């Protein structure tokens, strides 16, 4: 079956293929799991529901694996379409919703399992990280006797998604709805990231319930919230004449995503020019999906978002040429784990691996929201700072590659430290003595 027969525009096919591949890379699908759907108007103005075919491999979608259906009456396309098409079609009928995505977000699924006798009403999931809490708020969790395409699901899930951007099908996965397919994917990634953070916190003995209570009662004292997800054209580029820079930006964005330094379309990075800065507001950008590449005046404006403001602040007070912000889940977890022999949250991350401890004797940790002067001073002195509830910030003297190296190292340092803890090694002994008084 070729593309023309399914009458699906090529840019939409490419979008599905790109999201499909990215979801495999981010490990929120298995070979055949999940499905995604998009509302679309064809050339004649007729509304269509475009959805992945049943049993299709999301990492290798061919044009024939996409079905263009009538949204409100059964046609031949339904033979092939996902078994969850009816759920998607109802979700897409919600006001302002154009896309929906179902993924096997394994970390979130594990985080929302419970041992209760079924049927039951599982507790909703409260993310303990700024991305999850901001983008998803409290996520409902439902148990279904038949957890795939069943009538209860057709009824319940769209209802849940009236008020929530994501809902968990217990033991199965997440369903998200959004204005675009990219946004739906973003929500699924963020949801899984929250699940991953929860799991690590639990595994490392952090008391989660008091933390969650605090988050619900006063989230602003726990988090530095990023700017909300925006729908800029992900292929727009304000500086396409700077071919080499564009390539650098694309490479950097892809690395952030593929190396899991920040979930899809989260974080930001920039390179400063003389009067302007080149700015990627959705740092984590798989190659085929991209993200907007903007050129912004370095002048501070009242209308600047939180993220943009910090980039400008860094540049106005330093000679750094690059800045980056990533939400590294492992780093967030470590900001909640008290150092050996203490009860209070840490003010520094001490690498225990050889390379990490050489490059960074310590990495400072600040609470949210950080006080700008000390944040900038620490960036100056350490080049990288972790903000509890606010991600990892780094700066570079010259290049994007240089600034990328910091979050990349931080993730590795965190993995080693967490790993050593899991093995029950005595971290107090492993930390260099100098790091304690640094």
């Amino acid at each position, binding site marked *: 079956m070729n593309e023309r027969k399914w009458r699906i525009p090529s840019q939409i096919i490419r979008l599905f293929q790109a999201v499909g591949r990215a979801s495999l890379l981010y490990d929120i699908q298995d070979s055949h799991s999940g499905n995604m759907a998009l509302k679309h108007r064809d050339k004649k103005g007729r509304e269509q529901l475009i959805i992945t075919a049943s049993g299709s491999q999301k990492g290798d979608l061919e044009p024939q694996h996409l079905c263009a259906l009538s949204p409100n009456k059964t046609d031949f396309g339904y033979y092939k379409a996902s078994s969850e098409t009816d759920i998607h079609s109802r979700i897409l009928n919600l006001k302002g919703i154009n896309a929906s995505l179902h993924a096997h977000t394994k970390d979130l699924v594990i985080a929302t399992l419970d041992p209760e006798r079924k049927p039951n009403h599982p507790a909703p999931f409260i993310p303990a990280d700024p991305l999850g809490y901001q983008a998803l708020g409290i996520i409902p969790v439902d148990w279904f006797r038949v957890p795939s395409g069943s009538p209860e699901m057709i009824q319940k899930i769209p209802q849940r998604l009236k008020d929530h951007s994501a809902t968990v099908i217990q033991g199965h996965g997440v369903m998200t709805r959004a204005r675009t397919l990219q946004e739906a994917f973003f929500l699924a990634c963020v949801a899984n990231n929250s699940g991953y953070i929860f799991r690590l916190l639990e595994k490392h003995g952090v008391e989660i319930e008091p933390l969650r209570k605090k988050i619900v009662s006063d989230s602003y004292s726990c988090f530095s919230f990023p700017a909300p997800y925006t729908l800029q054209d992900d292929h727009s580029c304000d*500086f396409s004449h*700077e*071919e*080499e*820079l564009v*390539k*650098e930006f694309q490479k950097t964005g892809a690395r952030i995503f593929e190396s899991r330094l920040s979930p899809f379309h989260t974080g930001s990075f920039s*390179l*400063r*020019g*003389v*009067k*302007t800065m*080149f700015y990627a507001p959705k740092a984590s950008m798989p190659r085929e999906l991209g993200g907007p590449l903007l050129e912004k005046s370095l002048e501070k404006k009242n209308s600047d978002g939180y993220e943009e403001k910090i980039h400008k602040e860094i540049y106005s007070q*330093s*000679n750094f*040429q690059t800045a980056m912000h990533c939400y590294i889940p492992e780093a967030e977890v470590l900001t909640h784990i008290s150092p050996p022999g203490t009860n209070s949250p840490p003010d520094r991350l001490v690498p225990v691996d050889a390379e990490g401890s*050489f490059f960074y*004797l310590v990495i400072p940790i600040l609470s949210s929201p950080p006080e700008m002067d000390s944040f900038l*001073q620490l960036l*100056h*002195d350490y*080049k990288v700072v972790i903000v509890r509830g606010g991600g990892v910030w780094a700066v*570079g*003297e*010259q*290049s994007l*590659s*240089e600034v*990328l*190296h910091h979050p990349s190292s931080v993730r590795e340092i965190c993995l080693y430290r967490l790993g050593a803890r899991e093995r029950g090694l005595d971290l107090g002994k492993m930390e260099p003595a*100098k790091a304690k008084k640094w």
Partner: protein
Amino acid sequence: MPSEYGFYGTLLEINLTEGKINQKKLTPDLIENYLGGRGLATRILYENIDPSCDPLGEHNVLVIATSPLLKTKAPTACRGHMVFKSPLTGMLGSSNCGGTWASRLKSTGYDALMIKGKASQPVQVDIQREKTEIRPAAEVWGKDVHQTTDILSSQKNSSPSPGILTIGPAGENLCLYSAVMNDKNRAYGRSGPGAVFGSKNLKAITVTGKMSPPLKDKERFQSGLDQALYMMKAAPITKRLLRELGTSGLLKLIHLMDMLPHQNFQDNLHNMKELDKISGETLRESILERVGACYGCPVACQTHTRVGEKKGEGPEYETLVMIGPNCGIYNLKAVALANYRCNELGLDTISLGGTLACAMELYEKGILDKKTTGGIPLNFGNESLLPRLVDLIAYRKAFGEKLAEGSFRLASDFHHPELSMTIKKMEIPAYDPRSSFTQALGYMTSPTGACHLRGGYAVSLAFFGGTKEIPRFSIQQSPLAIRNMQNLGIIQDSLGICRFTGFAFSTEPWARMMSGATGMDFSTSQLQKISHRIASMERAFNLQAGLKEEDDCLPDRFSHESIGVEGKDKLISPELIQRMRRDYYQSRGWSPKGKLSTLIRADLQLNKRYT
């Protein structure tokens, strides 16, 4: 004597006209604001000179400064920095050198040395803690650098042995690109300091001493030192490459990057087989005897070589290319012998190569002929001419009189200044600016004229900067990238450390070592601020010396004759030059015309006198 941590707080002032020697106090805030080396020397110079003076006249002043890191264990911290008004450019002359002399100067108990006036007869200065003397130098005047060094060393016969800084005949004869040499073969090469020595009738400065100031916080110093050494051991360039291949190992890499100049920068086309004959690898296999190191340097990039019976140092990359392919010459031994002779006579090999290449182009274009050159067929590739030409230049004999003035004056005299590949009348080093906008802008805005060291060594950022690698044709990234690179260079020159440490790490370990040595709190951000200040200080000097915006420019060739880079034709249009220059000024906080703002002038406290 005031005693501070890391430095002594003493400047030795020598007035050659009056024969007077004075000690002056250097206050700690001078170190806080200008560090040492280049920063300290430039500040002292500014306060003691009229920048509009005649560079070869009595009123030129020459300052050499050390840094608080010298005489510590900081790796490569052996370098002195010399500033003066350059006879070649008419702007700030600024030259940096390794070897051992600067460390020995610090052993005498002085942080810096200032030479004023002009002796009526050739003299040498002998500095010791107890006594400094100005002595007649009749015995060594006219002798070459090696002979002078041997004679003065044998005269002193002291322990420790003296450090000897001297000029050769090129400096005595006021060749505008003559060098001041130490350890026989290490050069304060660029900007013509040799001619300034010569114009003052100053042949040599010997230093003997055993002093070193204490460190304030040994633990802090050590933590920076540990990190620096670790990184130098980890980075292949500092660990192995420079030692095994020397800087000449860059030759093929730079060619692969389409950046290697050919025949006075007319193109970048070379035959790989020809390049093989002069590469670092060939040097190692054919003429290298042993490697060597400057004082306290674990890198050891010096190449001690031998051609037949003749021994010497080099050639380094710049010499190799400027006297080699840029003159159409691909004969390693011929270049090495010319290099040896330049060291003996005290000549800057970059400007020498650039001047010869210009003369060759003038000759091949028929602007010069045998009549004007005194019968010399100045064709590209004519390697047999090299020994004779080097001598003619140093002694200003025959056509050497013209060549000793540098390529700009030579080409201008023959009405073709456009064939001089110079910026601010100084010859462009061995990287074609069309191959990297960043490097081009660095040459343009270097305070001393075309210099890859004072202008920022962007080449490393483009080709082997590791994580710091940047695109080489970004119009908008280049101004800040080169400014940052220049700032790093200013910090390195001011701390008395080698550029090559930059291949392993940036400023953080230095900030710690500097804080540990002095007890002052130096953060990386402070070092940045200081480097900005020093850049503006240098600009202030140049503006008073008559610098104009249009002097920060490239020769026309680079705007109108393209070369192939990665399969594309590349040149740098006048509009691009103007745009990048303006952006660069803005990145420094200067006006669109390159003038200093009131704010910067206030920070520099131009009316304040530290000395």
